[in-house]
C-alpha cells in the first residue's frame, strides 16, 4: 500500500531532537519501546544547543535554604498564576534528580569549592539555582543526551521534516515527512508520537531563534485535532544584540545579569530602579523587556535603540571564565570588549510559553497517541517563563512524555494508515513546483514585519485586528506559492512548507492576544493595562474545526489547599 515510499516503523516516533525530544526518546527506550527520532537539522544542532545560562533545580548547593517549594512558588509567581500548577509542582520536585542523572551520563557542570554542581542567580529565582557550564549549558546538555541516546540505540533520521501526522480514525498512526537532502518522501508508522519541535520565533523579525523554529509541531498537531493553549504568551528576552544589523536579535544570556551585570539608559540612569526596585536587573523577563522597550520609546535609548548592559566592573578574567561565549560574541561580531565597556541590548523574541495542551503527568495531548514536551507543550510556564526553567522543563517532561508514549504504544493494537492521506500529503508538498507566481521569501519577510510591528511587546486591539487581516492575505498568497529548482536540498521549497506552519502559529497567537483583554506576564495590552481577575482564571484554547481556527476558553486548574497556603502572604 505504501510501496511508493520509504517506510519506517517504530513504537514511538519523536519529532524534534532538542533536549525534550532526546530525553523522551531515551525514556521510551528505557521502557522497552523501539524509538525513531526525526529532526529537521543534523543531530546536536537543535535549539537547546543555544541555551546559555543554566538549568534551574533546587539542589541547594550554593543556597542551602532552597527547596522545591520555593522553586514552585517562583515559577507560579513568574507565570502570573496562569500555569498548570501540577506541571509546575512536578517540575520543581523532579528537576534536581533530572540534573543529577545528566551528571551520571557524563555531563560536566561547573563546580563549587565543595565539589558539588555550581549554581548561579537568575531573574525571578529566589535563590542561586541555575546549574551551569559557563555560558554554554545547553551544549553540554544536548551532547550528553545525544551520546546517551545514540549508545542506547535509537534510530535518528537527520535533516528530515515532518509535514503531516497520519491517523487511523481518531488515533495517531504515523507521520509523513521529506528528506531535506534528496527531497524524497518518507512514511513513518508509529503507535505513539511525541512532539518536541520547540517554538515559533522565526515568524518574527527580531528573534534569537534559528530557521528551524517555525512551529511545525504545533501546526501538524493542530491540524490533527490537538488543542493549542496560551498562544498569546510569547516571551521577548530582554537582552538581544541590537547592533550591528546583521546580528540583531542574537541572544545575550541572562547570566550576564546573573553574574552582576547592570542595565543603564543613555543618560547613565540605572532605570530598573523605577520598574522593579526590589529585584532590579534580576526581575522577571517580561518586566525587564518592557522596561527596556519603554526607556527606548521615551527617548532614553542608546545610539542604536537599546539599553546598555555593563559587566565591566567585574575582573576581566572572571568575565572571560564565566561568560566566554558573550566575550567572543561581542568581540567578533560587534567590536566591543565587554570586559572594558557596556554592551548594547534590546528585546528579542525568544520563547513560546503557549503550545499544545497536555495532561500534566504524561504530556498527553487531546488526540490519542499524541504527546508533547518542552517548548512545544503549554501549561508549565503560564504567562511568563523564568530563565533556566526551560532546560529543566524539557528534562522533566521529556522523560514523562517518553514513558507515557512507550506505555501507550504497548497497549495500542494494530494501526493502519490510509493511502489516501499519504497521497494527499504528497500532493500538498509537490504542488508548489507546478504553480507559477511569487516565491516564499517575500511572504516570509512580510509575516515577520507584521508580527514585529503589530504583535510585539505592547499590543492593542487595532494593531491585532490589522495583523489578523494581514495574516489572512498572507495565507492566501502562501497557498499559491511557487518554488523554483529541484527537490534536491532546496531551501525555497522547505520555506514554502515552513511558511504554512508559521502562518498557523501567527494566527493562533494573534487570535488569543486579541481575546485576552488584560495585561498579564508577557502579554501587555495598552488598551487593557491591568490584570483582570476573570481572565486570571482562564486559558485560551485554539482548535481547528472544518479547517477553521476556533477560539475557546478553559478554566485554569485550581491548586489544592496545601499549595495555596504557600502563597498566603502574597498580596
Amino acid at each position: 500500500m505504501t510501496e511508493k515510499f520509504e517506510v519506517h516503523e517504530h513504537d514511538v516516533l519523536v519529532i524534534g531532537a532538542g533536549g525534550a525530544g532526546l530525553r523522551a526518546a531515551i525514556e521510551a527506550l528505557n521502557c522497552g519501546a523501539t524509538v525513531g527520532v526525526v529532526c529537521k537539522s543534523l543531530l546536536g544542532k537543535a535549539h537547546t544547543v543555544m541555551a546559555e545560562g543554566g538549568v534551574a533545580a533546587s539542589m541547594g548547593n550554593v543556597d542551602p535554604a532552597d527547596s522545591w517549594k520555593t522553586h514552585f512558588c517562583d515559577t507560579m509567581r513568574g507565570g502570573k498564576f496562569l500555569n498548570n500548577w501540577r506541571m509546575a509542582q512536578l517540575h520543581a520536585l523532579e528537576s534536581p534528580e533530572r540534573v543529577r542523572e545528566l551528571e551520571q551520563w557524563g555531563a560536566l557542570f561547573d563546580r563549587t569549592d565543595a565539589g558539588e554542581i555550581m549554581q548561579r542567580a537568575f531573574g525571578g529565582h529566589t535563590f542561586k539555582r541555575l546549574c551551569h557550564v559557563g555560558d554554554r549549558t545547553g551544549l553540554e546538555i544536548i551532547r550528553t543526551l545525544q551520546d546517551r541516546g545514540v549508545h542506547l540505540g535509537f534510530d535518528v533520521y537527520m535533516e528530515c521534516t515532518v509535514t503531516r501526522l497520519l491517523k487511523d480514525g481518531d488515533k495517531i498512526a504515523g507521520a509523513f515527512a521529506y528528506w531535506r537532502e534528496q527531497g524524497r518522501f518518507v512514511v513513518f508508522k508509529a503507535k505513539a508520537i511525541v512532539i518536541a519541535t520547540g517554538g515559533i520565533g522565526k515568524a518574527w523579525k527580531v528573534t534569537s531563534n534559528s530557521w528551524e523554529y517555525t512551529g511545525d509541531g504545533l501546526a501538524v498537531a493542530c491540524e490533527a485535532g490537538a488543542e493549542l493553549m496560551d498562544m498569546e504568551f510569547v516571551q521577548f528576552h530582554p537582552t538581544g544584540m541590537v547592533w550591528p544589523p546583521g546580528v540583531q536579535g542574537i541572544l545575550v544570556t541572562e547570566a550576564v545579569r546573573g553574574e552582576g551585570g547592570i542595565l543603564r539608559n543613555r543618560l547613565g540612569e540605572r532605570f530598573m530602579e523605577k520598574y522593579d526596585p526590589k529585584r532590579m536587573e534580576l526581575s522577571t523577563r517580561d518586566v525587564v523587556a518592557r522596561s527596556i522597550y519603554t526607556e527606548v520609546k521615551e527617548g532614553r535609548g542608546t545610539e542604536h535603540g537599546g539599553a546598555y548592559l555593563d559587566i565591566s566592573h567585574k575582573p576581566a578574567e572572571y568575565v572571560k571564565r564565566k561568560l566566554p561565549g558573550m566575550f567572543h560574541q561581542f568581540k567578533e561580531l560587534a567590536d566591543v570588549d565587554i570586559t572594558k565597556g557596556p554592551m548594547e541590548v534590546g528585546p528579542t523574541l525568544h520563547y513560546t510559553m503557549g503550545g499544545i495542551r497536555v495532561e500534566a503527568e504524561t504530556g498527553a495531548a487531546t488526540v490519542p497517541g499524541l504527546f508533547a514536551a518542552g517548548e512545544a507543550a503549554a501549561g508549565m510556564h503560564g504567562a511568563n517563563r523564568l530563565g533556566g526553567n526551560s532546560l529543566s522543563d524539557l528534562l522533566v517532561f521529556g522523560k514523562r512524555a517518553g514513558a507515557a508514549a512507550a506505555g501507550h504504544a504497548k497497549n495500542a493494537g494494530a494501526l493502519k494508515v490510509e493511502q489516501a492521506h499519504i497521497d494527499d500529503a504528497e500532493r500538498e508538498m509537490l504542488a508548489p513546483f507546478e504553480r507559477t507566481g511569487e516565491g516564499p521569501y517575500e511572504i516570509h519577510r512580510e509575516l515577520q514585519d507584521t508580527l514585529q510591528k503589530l504583535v510585539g511587546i505592547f499590543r492593542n486591539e487595532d494593531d491585532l485586528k490589522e495583523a489578523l487581516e494581514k495574516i489572512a492575505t498572507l495565507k492566501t498568497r502562501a497557498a499559491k506559492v511557487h518554488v523554483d529548482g529541484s527537490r534536491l536540498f532546496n531551501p525555497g521549497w522547505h520555506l514554502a512548507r515552513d511558511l504554512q506552519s508559521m502562518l498557523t502559529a501567527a494566527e493562533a497567537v494573534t487570535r488569543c492576544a486579541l481575546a485576552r483583554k488584560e495585561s498579564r506576564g508577557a502579554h501587555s495590552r495598552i488598551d487593557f493595562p491591568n490584570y483582570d481577575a476573570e481572565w486570571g482564571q482562564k486559558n485560551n484554547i485554539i482548535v481547528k474545526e472544518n479547517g477553521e481556527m476556533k477560539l475557546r476558553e478553559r478554566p485554569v486548574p485550581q491548586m489544592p489547599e496545601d499549595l495555596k497556603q504557600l502563597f498566603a502572604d502574597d498580596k
Partner: protein
Amino acid sequence: MAEVVMAVNRGDASGGKTVEYKVPLSPGMVVLDALHYIQGHLSPDFAVRWNCKAGRCGSCSAEVNGKPRLTCKTRMDSLPQDKPITVLPLKAFPVIKDLVTDVSWNYEVNRKIPAFSARPGTNWKMYQKDVDRPQEFRKCIECFLCQNVCHVLRDHGKHAEYGGPRYLVRVAGLEMHPLDGLSRIKGVRNQMGIGLCNITKCCSEVCPEEIHITDNAIIPLKERVVDQFYDPLVWIARKIKGSESGS
C-alpha cells in the same frame, strides 16, 4: 549602497561551478548574511546549512577565500572587498548541493566511541581544577572544520582508518573525565588510527572554540598509547601473560 561580489559554489554530487552574485553590504554583516541574501533575493534554491547564526551550533562551516570558517562569525569587513569573495563547501566531505556536504561519516565515527561509564562506587564529587581540562574538550560545537583541514582526511582520504581531530577530542574528554572508569586507548590506537596524526596543528588553528586540539587532546592521548603499547616493561609483561593490554 556598497556592493560586493560573492563567488559561490553551485552544483551537486555530479559537479559544480563557481557562480557570482552581487550583494549589498551593511554594517557588521557576516558572510552568512550574504549567503542568505543570495537565497532570499537572487536564487531561492541556493543550499546552505545553518542554524543558530551565533557561533554556537557549528552548522555553517565553509571555505571562505580558501580558509575554513564558520560563515556566521566571519565579518565581511574582514575580507578584501575589491575582488570576489569565494565561498566553497568543505573539501573533506562529499558535496550534496552548493555549500552543503555529507558529514554523516562523522556521526558513524562517534557511534563507535564507548560512552561515559562511571567508576563503580563514585560519590559524584568533582572539583573545578579536575574538570577544567575535559570541559575544554566539551566546548566542541562539531563544526567539523578540524576534520576538514586535517590532511589525513582532506588530502589522503583515510576516513576508513582515522577518526580525525574532532573525535580524538571527544575521546580525550571522556578519558580525562575525573569519574570515568573505562579505557579507550586501544581503540584510539587501532580503530581511530591516532598514529596517522603527525602533529601539524592545522586543526588547532581553525577551531572556532579555540580548543588546543593537538597540545591538550591529541598529544596526551598519543602519550597514553605509547605508555600502554610501547613501554618495554609493559611489552614484556604482555608477552608473558600472552594478551594485549588496554580495552
